[in-house]
């Protein structure tokens, strides 16, 4: 049950594509379901390390620790939900290739323990993201894709620079070895490597100062695709950033800088969402905000906070995917994603979907967001980080303002278009809503998993301190 299967199966599916041209969406659903089952089965045999040596410097080493297992299951789950949603529409070659390539890239990023492998999957995921952004084949989509490509190239340039520096100074590509010998190299070079890593991954994880391109890209791509981006793409890079940070024993002052950047991301994103009138853009800002929040939690390097961060990752992925898929549904029927479309459709189910999504994003009981926010605040209080707590509480008020203004759209508007959902869509959204409610009421099992993952992630970091 080697880890390569996660990479090979989707690639194989892409190569065999010509054979089943008409049933692509079926194939991708089955594929993602299979991968999801595979991920669940190998829960028992953690931690799993697989090493395939090609020739000396280049090797493919995958490592499935509990935290990467958690993320892989999340990615495969959201991928299967995404493809389930797309069953209704005709099969689309570009979509099929893009999504599976994205899945490969994202899983690779999380699994690989070799810095060069990470770069390969870095490139794969970026390319598939550019492809997916341009799905709509209109001027806006292409514009967004090109902008995304340029900035993505800029980021991979810096990433390549850091790999080159590491290789020159340490001469080895395996993360474990790098981690051991990292502090032997000269101080300035260390700082240069860390800085270039930060810039590269900062752009990809959309931290403040580096995320000005995000709203336009999200707006350019289809809502479903942006849902995929926010559920999988940014999360994986976030994990990578902090995984490397912990491995390379980043100093506390640099961690404090990261906290500051994360807080800024959170605050600025939420504030700018307040007055925007375009739903997709609002959800993009909300994703940026949540990423800032998760980064803030991870940057403290405390197990409780990391556990809360991981839980928040899962909850946010689910909620945001649901919202984006629902928005996609509306976009296909009403054509635009302006805020007033909320006043132009009449469907009790969809209203419930948006309400549940918004409430759990806000962290309002009894939905999952609350459990995440509570554990986050508990962790922060434990560390006496009162400033961060105050920031989270006040800025989530801003978040409440714009989310509820969206929801209040249901009450206005006279001639409403009745939107009927197919039973499959009802099933998907019903499952997601139920999951959010379930996680909200009984978060303990998932929290325990996150706790275990947090320990695994921070094991090395604590040992070094």
């Amino acid at each position, binding site marked *: 049950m080697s880890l390569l299967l996660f990479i090979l199966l989707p690639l194989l599916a892409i190569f065999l594509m010509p054979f089943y041209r008409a049933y692509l969406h079926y194939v991708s659903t089955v594929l993602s379901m299979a991968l999801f089952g595979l991920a669940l089965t190998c829960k028992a045999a953690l931690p799993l390390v697989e090493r395939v040596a090609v020739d000396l410097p280049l090797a493919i080493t995958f490592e499935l620790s509990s935290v990467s297992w958690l993320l892989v299951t999340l990615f495969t789950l959201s991928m299967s939900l995404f493809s389930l949603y797309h069953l209704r529409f005709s099969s689309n070659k570009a979509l099929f290739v893009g999504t599976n390539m994205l899945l490969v890239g994202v899983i690779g990023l999380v699994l690989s323990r070799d810095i060069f492998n990470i770069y390969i999957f870095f490139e794969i995921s970026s390319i598939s993201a550019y492809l997916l952004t341009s799905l709509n084949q209109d001027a806006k989509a292409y514009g967004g894709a090109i902008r995304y490509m*340029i900035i993505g190239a800029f980021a991979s340039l810096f990433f390549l620079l850091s790999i080159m520096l590491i290789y020159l100074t340490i001469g080895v590509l395996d993360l474990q070895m790098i981690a051991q010998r990292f502090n032997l190299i000269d101080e300035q070079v260390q700082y240069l490597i860390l800085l270039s890593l930060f810039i590269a991954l900062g752009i990809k994880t959309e931290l403040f100062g580096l995320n000005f391109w995000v709203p336009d890209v999200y707006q350019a791509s289809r809502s479903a695709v942006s849902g995929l981006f926010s559920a999988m793409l940014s999360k994986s890079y976030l994990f990578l950033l902090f995984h490397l940070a912990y491995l390379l024993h980043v100093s506390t002052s640099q961690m404090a800088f990261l906290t500051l950047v994360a807080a800024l991301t959170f605050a600025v994103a939420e504030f700018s969402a307040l007055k925007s009138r375009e739903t997709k853009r609002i959800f993009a800002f909300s994703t940026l905000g949540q990423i800032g929040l998760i980064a803030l939690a991870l940057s403290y390097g405390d197990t409780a906070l990391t556990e809360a961060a991981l839980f928040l990752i899962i909850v946010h992925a689910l909620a945001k995917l649901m919202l984006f898929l629902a928005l996609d549904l509306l976009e296909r029927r009403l054509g635009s994603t302006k805020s007033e479309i909320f006043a132009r459709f009449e469907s009790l189910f969809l209203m419930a979907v948006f309400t549940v999504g918004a409430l759990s994003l806000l962290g309002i009981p009894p939905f999952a967001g609350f459990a995440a926010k509570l554990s986050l605040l508990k962790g*922060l209080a434990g560390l006496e980080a009162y400033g961060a707590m105050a920031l989270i*509480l006040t800025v989530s008020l801003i978040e409440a303002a714009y989310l509820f203004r969206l929801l209040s759209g249901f009450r206005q508007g006279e001639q409403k278009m009745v939107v009927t959902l197919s039973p499959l869509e009802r099933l998907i959204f019903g499952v997601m809503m139920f999951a959010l409610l379930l996680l909200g009421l009984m978060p303990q099992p998932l929290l325990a998993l996150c706790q275990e993952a947090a320990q695994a992630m921070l094991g090395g970091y604590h040992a070094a301190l």
Partner: protein
Amino acid sequence: MLHFEATLLGHLFFGLSLLVIVALLRKNDGLWHLLLLGSLGIIFYASSLVTLFIGWEMMGWSGYFILSKTARVSTLQRYILFNLGGAFALLGAIALLFSFMGSMMLCDIDLTLLPVWALHSVSALVLIAVFVKSGIIGAHDWVVDSYQEASPLFSAVLSAILSKAGIYLFIVLLLKQPHDERVLFELMAWLGAITSVVATFKAISQDEIKRLLAYSSIAQLGYIITALSLMQAYALEAALYHTVIHTLVKLLLFVNVAAIMAITGKERFSELGGLLYRVPLLFVLLVIGIIALAGMPLLGGFNGKFLLYTALLEEKRALLLATVMFSSASAFLYCYKLVYGIYLGQRPHDESPLHVSPKSYYIPQLLSAALLILLGFLPALPTPLFSAIGVEAGFSALEFTKPSILNSPFGSFNGAVLMSAFGVVFVLILGLLQRVHSKAKAAQNAQDISYCGEVPKAGVNLHFGYGMGHELGRIGFIAFILRRQSRRFWDYLNLIVGDLSILLRSLYALGTQHILLLSLLGFTLLLLGGL
């Protein structure tokens, strides 16, 4: 996540909310009301901080969805933002408490262990939640707007029960405080008193009925908050007693007003008037309501206030007591405006027909009127319950002799004697007046009033109802109060946040080349900084 434990206090508050919600349940919006009742149940029977918070939030947003059936968007936003603001403050307090206490269970919350700054910050945060929920003078705009725009029956629920959640929260979390760290509670006492004075004068100058009742609820809650801040057995009993009375009175008044709106379809004093002889039962019920609301000795309304006054006297807080008595005396003006505006006076000329008010409006009114009269006869009836709650919260038990004698540190009074004396004397004078041999000639019609020899023409509006609070505006001190508008402060804040967000949003509209330039600049700066 959810831990429950039945306490006497919980039973009292849940009983009240059960009474109110069941009495006001209507066919079409049953689901939301049940959800609201569920969330109230969670709050009142919560044994852990998290359960308490879950109930508090669910109450918030289930109220939001009920309100959203009738209210404008701006009111809804104001409602949810204020409520969430209070809730997030509470969440912050809970997190803080957890970090010091180590456990979430209510039973092992002991505020005396906290360091001083933590104690102040926790109580400040909880007080924010309490103040927002009960609409203290700074944060009262949402209360007034949402009562005005909610459906009449839901505004009854809002005023009778939801505003009490804050009181329950205070009793459960903050009641036991180390004696010397009471600076916050001195402020709270004065805030409650000032709220009741300002809200009373604002209530008097209102033209819409529900706005008047909203301001009156704010004023009454001001009393309860002042009572709670005294940290004394009788003051707690006063607060609880007044909570019960206020729930009954507001249930009665709001349902009465709802019946009037169902009959006439109007909700302003200037459009109403002269309904006395068309719906006499509603009038009598409203009179019972305002007697209790004004705190007159006959019905139950006086008992709560009496205990509050004696508690204040015992604590020798003379100026505070004077403010509270002043505001409860001037409360009488808006009570009379309520009765006069709707029922008495001449009916302004409009031929719109009067519909029959549904029977179901009468049941809650009769119920609460009967309870108020009973409490008038036996004022000390609920004292054992309140003293048990006091003991449970760590105060000394209250002195209780007979159900009809309500005693307090500053003297007692016998409700039964008072009421029966009123009844006997009333009958005596009625008999005297009947026996006197001068025949009483009924006035011919509405025009047959002494009007300086003139016959009032048809178009002349003889109803003075809405004019009642106008001359108050000319009195210097009161005009100063009426001019203060906290709404302007909140709108200004909203404006600033809006501008800030537009400014920040412009960051995300940069061209690609600018973004690259910025990141390069960032890289070089960090590089130079780090080397």
